[in-house]
């Protein structure tokens, strides 16, 4: 087990190194070079030269890369050109909002997706199946931000069931402990704050969950269909096992293997979707940081978000691989 973990970790290192090299190259290829990009409107030839010296951009390229890597490894991504604050601290503050949103979205997608996919497979070709498949196809074809606006216009503005934006109502006085507002409310026993935060979460989480939900339904359906036709399910039926046993022990156990990999891949979709959803719901998380960085050309922040986003994605998939090895005895550690 430990050897497997170490080997997979060792495989991640070159990927991350290469990624840092790409991001480094990306920074170097910014229009006018990094210095003018960092300075933005304030760029004058003197200032650029000055900054180049300060940033070490007059040094040989490999020295520059070494320094860049050193800074990145120590968590120094520089200061945001918008706020002047250290990028890492900004990210740290925005992270709980996005994590809260993404986790709920993923929970929705998994909790609905697996049963729906199973149901569709079991009634293959029937009305439930056809409706589900059409639903998933439309689900991936709807632009996320448009869906967000639709939900907001209907459920928040028209019906008034949920708040249209933000993470907490202004009149709710919540104590900040962890930054996760739902959790904070529970910790400080301010349950009304938790409830308020949850009601704010519903619409953006549903919008964000749509695409992962559609993907999980389709993979589950395909996977269950595949397993239902397999020889060992036939064996299980030939043993006269109760339908419930066949379903949980034989069909689902096997069908969920590919689904678990897919769930890992969804984290990438969630990160990307968060950028769009957060903008719609004025969420103030990582996605908002990213959207602002794009509009205002905040390269240090962009660079940090890019690297960290990829890091999270790679680590989550590593985690998925590990859990796969635990569920599937054929993958030997």
């Amino acid at each position, binding site marked *: 087990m430990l050897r497997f973990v170490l080997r997979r970790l060792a495989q991640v290192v070159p990927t991350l190194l290469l990624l840092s090299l790409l991001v480094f190259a990306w920074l170097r290829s910014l229009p006018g070079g990094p210095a003018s990009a960092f300075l933005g409107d304030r760029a004058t030839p003197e200032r650029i030269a000055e900054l180049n010296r300060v940033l070490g951009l007059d040094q040989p390229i490999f020295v520059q890369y070494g320094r860049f890597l050193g800074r990145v490894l120590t968590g120094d991504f520089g200061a945001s050109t918008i706020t002047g604050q250290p990028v890492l601290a900004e990210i740290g503050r925005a992270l709980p909002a996005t994590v809260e949103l993404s986790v709920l979205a993923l929970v929705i997608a998994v909790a609905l997706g697996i049963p729906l996919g199973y149901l569709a497979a079991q009634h293959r070709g029937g009305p439930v199946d056809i409706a589900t498949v059409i639903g998933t196809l439309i689900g991936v074809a709807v632009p996320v931000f448009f869906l967000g606006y639709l939900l907001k216009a209907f459920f928040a503005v028209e019906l008034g069931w949920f708040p249209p934006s933000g993470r907490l109502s202004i009149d709710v006085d919540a104590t900040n402990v962890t930054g996760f507002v739902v959790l904070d409310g529970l910790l400080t026993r301010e349950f009304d704050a938790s409830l308020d935060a949850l009601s704010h979460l519903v619409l953006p989480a549903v919008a964000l969950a749509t695409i992962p939900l559609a993907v999980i339904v389709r993979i589950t359906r395909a996977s269950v269909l595949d397993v239902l036709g397999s020889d060992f399910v036939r064996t299980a039926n030939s043993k006269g096992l109760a339908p419930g046993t066949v379903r949980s022990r034989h069909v689902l156990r096997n069908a969920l293997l590919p689904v678990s990999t897919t769930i890992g891949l969804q984290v990438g979709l969630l990160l990307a979707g968060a950028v769009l959803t957060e903008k719609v719901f004025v969420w103030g998380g990582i996605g908002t940081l990213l959207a602002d960085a794009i509009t205002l050309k905040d390269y240090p922040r962009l660079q940090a978000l890019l690297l960290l986003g*990829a890091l999270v994605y790679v680590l989550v998939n590593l985690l998925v691989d590990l859990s796969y090895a635990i569920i599937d005895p054929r993958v030997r550690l």
Partner: protein
Amino acid sequence: MSTTWATRRKTRIDDLSAGRSLTSEAFRRLRRDPVALTGATIIGVFVVIAALAPLIAPHGAAEAFPALQENLRPGSIPGPQDGFPLGGDQLGRDFYSRMLLASQQTLLVGVLATVIGLIVGIVIGTLAGAFGGWVDTVLMRVTDVLLAVPSLLLAISVAALAASPSQTTVIIAVAVVGVPIFARLLRGSMLSQRDSDHVIAATALGVKRPAVVLRHMLPNAIGPVIVQATLTLATAILDAAALSFLGLGDADPGRAEWGLMLAQAQSYLDVRPALAFYPAIAIIVVALGFTLLGESLREALDPKGSR
């Protein structure tokens, strides 16, 4: 009556002995598949509209009309009226003409982004799959890294490199997303070809390496890549819309493109929702069309799908 089963038997054997290739068999199956037909019809209509748009659109995309502009106030955008069947947009232009003309730009963005990604991906995948060894290792490491970045994030970082956003940067950004996917797919498919009997036979017969790769391996390996390209056409259009929404889209105010129109219309959603709904529905239908066709193509080419 004896002829009926005799001829039936004959055609059945002819079917088998005529050596019909898998692809023509797949094509035959596709033509009877309602899903594929729906997808193909949607795409067909879309392409025809896009091709004829300049002819059927009554007005230009950038043309503003005083009749529409006069009634343009904060909180009010003129609806359908004489000469303007869908009303005006936020700048007093003919919304109907813009919807039609936008089909062309949307098709252009989607197709160009996919084709560029496809070509680069095919080159990388062919090199990796055909040569193996360190060429393969290096190329696949790079694609792995690109795949490690969530696709929209990748498109964003490419688009953000440009000094100012334009249609070209959108196309390139969306194309980059497709490259690692196409390359990986083709490489995997080529690898399975490399060890197949007909490739070994061709090599044994002394056929030169490039000829083996281009004539024997590539044509047999390209199937899954084409399927993916069809599906990518759908995501390319959606990604382009997302970039527009984030302010990384085409900066040309005169240009009509559905993603762009949808992104711009978000600010007028409560004033005139039609401005968002029409482009959104157009995008959904077209993306659905490509997805339907792609999925049924995949099923038709997959030998497992025939059961």
